């Protein structure tokens, strides 16, 4: 069965949606992501939708669900790369994408996630330093 790959980077999960999702693919992504958050103890999820030419209410609901499910699993979700035409359409349609954070691009999204979950890399290296002292 087709699946959207989920990449793990430290305590973050990265998803790049490259094709227009049909429903099954989208619902699979939802369950896969929540399971991955559990398995990898991820603290953040970054979803890149820059290749999506449309987001309808179904896709909006999936993104919202991922955000809320991750939240109760103690992980933050950032959706990045939304095309301007998609943003205009979403608001006129009446979807506000509540429950997920958004950022302009992957770089800003990563910064936002690090801010939200605290800079764990530094925390880890600090602990290492402490233990060697």
């Amino acid at each position, binding site marked *: 069965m087709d699946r959207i790959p989920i990449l793990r980077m430290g305590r973050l999960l990265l998803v790049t949606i490259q094709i*227009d999702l*049909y*429903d*099954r693919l989208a619902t699979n992504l939802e369950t896969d992501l929540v399971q991955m958050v559990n398995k990898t103890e991820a603290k953040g999820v970054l979803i890149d939708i820059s290749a999506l*030419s*449309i*987001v*309808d*209410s*179904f896709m*909006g*609901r999936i993104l919202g669900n991922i955000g809320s499910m991750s939240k109760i699993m103690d992980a933050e979700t950032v959706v990045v790369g939304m*095309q*301007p*035409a*998609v943003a*205009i*359409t979403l608001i*006129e*349609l*009446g*979807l506000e994408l509540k429950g997920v954070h958004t950022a302009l691009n992957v770089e800003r999204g990563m910064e936002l996630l690090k801010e939200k979950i605290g800079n764990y890399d530094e925390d880890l290296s600090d602990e290492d330093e402490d233990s060697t002292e």
Partner: protein
Amino acid sequence: MKIVLSKDRMAIEREQDVVPFRNRVKEYAVKIGMSLVNQTKLITAASELVRNMLKYANGGTVLIEVLSQGRDSGIRLVFTDKGPGIKDISLAMKDGFSTGKSLGIGLPGTKRLVNEFDIKSTVGEGTTVSIIKWKNG
């Protein structure tokens, strides 16, 4: 006066038909030179309506027409299903109302995305929704 320049018909039977259908609508929108924002609005509206059709009526057919009116051109989509029909259309057109588990933004939201929106429904016979998006609308 609206002149129909071309007609195309597509059957929607399964959720897998949604993406090819959206692509077909996009092809026509690109062909008449519709702006990207209007294309996105039209395709999103089409996606909402085709999902409704699958969800409540197990599918149906869509007529895709290229229209010309004076100097403007546009796309008309007519969604026809033989589903249960809608009892109270004015209620269905209200923001936040849904008999399914959805967000209830489908119909009113879709109406906001297009220039013309028309819905006719007979309980027990089916529903027809017609939308028009003008190139420069």
